[in-house]
């Protein structure tokens, strides 16, 4: 018992001592892979601007990137009522913007009114728009604010993670911020310098003001090879997302700097063209609309090999539209389709297909041959296509690989529908299923396998429509989860998208950076930016 106490005492002493090793005047450096398009938090639509907003913006509610739970920030408490149409916040007292202007509920009301102004065309505001009508925002007193929407907004609280509050009174407008850092300098095409916000309200367990870092320099650098080189030289301390080959290369030189955090939210998938008006032969349309055919193709693909060979083991066989990284929404009862070419052949033979040992023929005698299109220059997709080509050869299917430049590919899959099978990836940034509405509703233009249907072409698509609408119209999370689990099951059964892999989130963090705790959600490495510091002992540590 005494030993345990001593150990605890020593551990708490070490924890308390951690920031004491921090460099004074420390500057964290990493790279923005594109020029930020805006510094206005309401107009953010690109990753670089999103990074700036995350580092500078103060929000009412924050999604904890590690637990994926909601945490109070500027809003001390909140209450959703009227079935998701109304939300009331009680905001924190005694806070100031980075220019010293006091923060009140009036600023929240001003931010929401501006955000929901249709003239502003705010991408962040669009996620709150579930129907036509005015949003009413009232601030009855300096600590309370009430926001009423014309109809229920699914996952309403979570959306406030993206809403950086701006000042209604500050002459600096959106440059006055409530986040841990404020923009100090910007040289277009070169860098953005952020300095510590001296008015920031958070303190650590010992009562020290956060953040620990004095500044962050974000260099605009598109070239990934240079980014890697600069990391190796110690000129930058973070790489927020690495691909498998860069990861492997860096792991050889600096194994302590690289981390594989496990499956990310991103997936790679293929889908067959099921558009009735597409310019492909009718017998092929018949194959592609057959669930058995799609299931057989899915079973004939060796996902384990794709993960192991193409991604050097830094990927997992995908199950469906939700990655296991999405802790709450992932349907845990589903498993990836097993690799079983014999089962695939049996399935096809039951449908009248004949395999002569080399070639698979359909019941009308057509040999099964189709092409897969993917974007040129993406090494991983080209390699996946080559592996799928060999896998399908085992069941007598001849696959032709066509790599196209991106505009030509988009033209084919969304306008002319002149393609047979497409291999692409999906980058997910939102955990909530409502963000996928445009993919699953049969009337949507993003319903890739058969978009913009006037009425659902199949009964299972009609069921997906119903379930997606149902989950969006209630605020009961348990009920929503039940609806979305059913959607995932239908997709698993029908395979309109044949999910291949979920790539792992791979990052690089300098050992000099302390308190790091990388996660799969963006921003993977600096989500806890307030707690990060550079150790003057040259080696930091993990939380």
């Amino acid at each position, binding site marked *: 018992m005494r030993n345990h106490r001593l150990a605890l005492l020593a551990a708490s002493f070490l924890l308390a001592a951690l920031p004491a090793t921090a460099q004074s005047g420390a500057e964290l450096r990493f790279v923005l892979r594109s020029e930020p398009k805006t510094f206005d938090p309401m107009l953010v639509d690109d990753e670089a601007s999103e990074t700036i907003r995350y580092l500078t913006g103060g929000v009412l509610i924050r999604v904890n990137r590690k637990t994926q739970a909601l945490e109070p920030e500027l809003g001390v408490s909140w209450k959703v009522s009227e079935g998701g149409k109304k939300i009331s916040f009680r905001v924190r007292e005694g806070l100031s913007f980075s220019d010293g202007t006091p923060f009140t509920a009036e600023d929240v009301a001003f931010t929401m009114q501006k955000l929901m102004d249709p003239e502003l065309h705010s991408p962040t505001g669009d996620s709150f728009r579930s129907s036509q009508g005015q949003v009413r925002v009232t601030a009855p007193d300096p600590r309370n604010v009430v926001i009423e929407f014309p109809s229920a907004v699914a996952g309403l609280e979570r959306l406030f993670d993206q809403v950086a509050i701006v000042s209604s009174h500050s002459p600096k407008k959106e440059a006055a911020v409530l986040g841990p850092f404020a923009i100090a300098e910007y040289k277009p095409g070169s860098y953005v310098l952020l300095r510590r916000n001296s008015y920031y309200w958070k303190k650590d367990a010992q009562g020290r003001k956060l953040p620990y870092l004095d500044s962050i320099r974000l260099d605009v650098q598109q070239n990934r090879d240079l980014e890697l080189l600069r990391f190796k030289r110690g000129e930058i301390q973070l790489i927020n997302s690495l691909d498998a*080959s860069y990861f*492997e*290369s860096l792991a*050889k030189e600096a194994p302590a700097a690289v981390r594989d955090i496990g499956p990310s939210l991103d997936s790679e998938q293929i889908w067959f063209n099921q558009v009735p008006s597409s310019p492909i032969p009718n017998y092929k349309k018949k194959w592609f609309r057959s669930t058995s055919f799609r299931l057989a193709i899915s079973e004939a693909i060796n996902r384990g*090999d794709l993960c*192991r*060979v*193409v991604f050097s083991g830094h990927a997992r066989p995908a199950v469906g539209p939700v990655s296991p990284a999405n802790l709450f929404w992932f349907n845990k009862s589903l498993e990836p389709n097993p690799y079983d070419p014999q089962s695939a052949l049996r399935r096809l033979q039951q449908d009248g297909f004949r395999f002569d040992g080399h070639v698979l023929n359909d019941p009308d005698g057509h040999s099964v*041959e*189709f*092409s897969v*299109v993917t974007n*040129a*220059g993406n*090494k991983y997709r*080209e*390699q996946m*296509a*080559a*592996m799928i*080509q*060999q896998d399908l050869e085992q069941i007598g299917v001849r696959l*032709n*690989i*066509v*790599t*196209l*430049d991106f505009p*030509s590919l988009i*033209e084919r899959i969304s306008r002319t529908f*002149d*393609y*047979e099978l497409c291999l692409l990836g999906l980058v997910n940034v939102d955990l909530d299923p409502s963000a996928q509405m445009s993919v699953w509703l049969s009337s949507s233009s993003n319903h890739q396998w058969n978009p913009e249907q006037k009425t659902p072409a199949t009964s299972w698509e009609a069921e997906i429509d119903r379930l997606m609408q149902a989950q969006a119209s209630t605020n009961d999370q348990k009920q929503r989860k039940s609806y979305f689990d059913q959607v995932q099951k239908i997709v698993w059964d029908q395979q309109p998208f044949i999910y291949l892999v979920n790539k792992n989130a791979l990052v690089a963090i300098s050992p000099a950076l302390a308190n790091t705790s990388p996660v799969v959600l963006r921003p993977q490495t600096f989500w806890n930016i307030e707690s990060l510091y550079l150790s003057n002992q040259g080696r930091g540590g993990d939380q």
Partner: protein
Amino acid sequence: MKLLRRTAAAFLIAVFIAALFAGVLVPVPYAKQFRDSPNAMPSRIHLLGTDELGRDLFSRLLYGSRISLLLAPAASLLATIIAALVGGVAGYAGGWLERIALGGTDLAMSLPWLFLLLAARAVLPLNLSPAASLLITFALLGFFGWAASARVICAGARGLRDSDFVLQAKACGCSSRRVLLQQVLPNLRPALFAQFLISIPVFILTEANLGILGLGVSEPLPSWGGLLRGLENWSAVQANPARLAPLLLLLVVVSCFQLVLRQEDFAP
């Protein structure tokens, strides 16, 4: 020098034979993926190791040589013939014909041919076999790659047009056709040959670049261009220097071509 030429010729013959009988020489098919040994080091089974998908690099090099050694010279020949016709006639005839031909050549050179190739690929049917896509790729290269050579040949033909022996031939009453075929073209042979030779590695490398844009030789067929793309992964090259084999072979083959087919041999 003679020994060097003979050695070069022997090497080229050996490469051609090896490429032609690749099916007999290679231990494993070029498309077979040994998925348990991707990026393998050279061994008895895989003489040059394997690529990222575990395919035998030696097999791919031999089959790739067959494709590149047959089709890059064919594309180069096509481009040189077009260049000889346009440049030779323009330079010899002079006047308005030369102005029009040179204007057309300049226009062809100023066209964003890369985008034209992309547009051409975008309208091609999707279900082309790898062999058909290969032929189309090199045919397009030949059709689009003549303009620079035409300018050089035009300059050469213009110089010959005013030369003493051409004037003498004309004074003797030779017809324009005879002068063109018997006096001008033989004297243009070194220039034509140089253009033909220069174009071969250019087309091989262009095919590699087109691969990045989706117009190269499609999987699973190998080509030198496709194999050169493997050099992008520098850490894999460092781990297995045998991956440089396609680059070395390209350099040696082009050098051997230049040694064996000397320009003097083509002088009239």
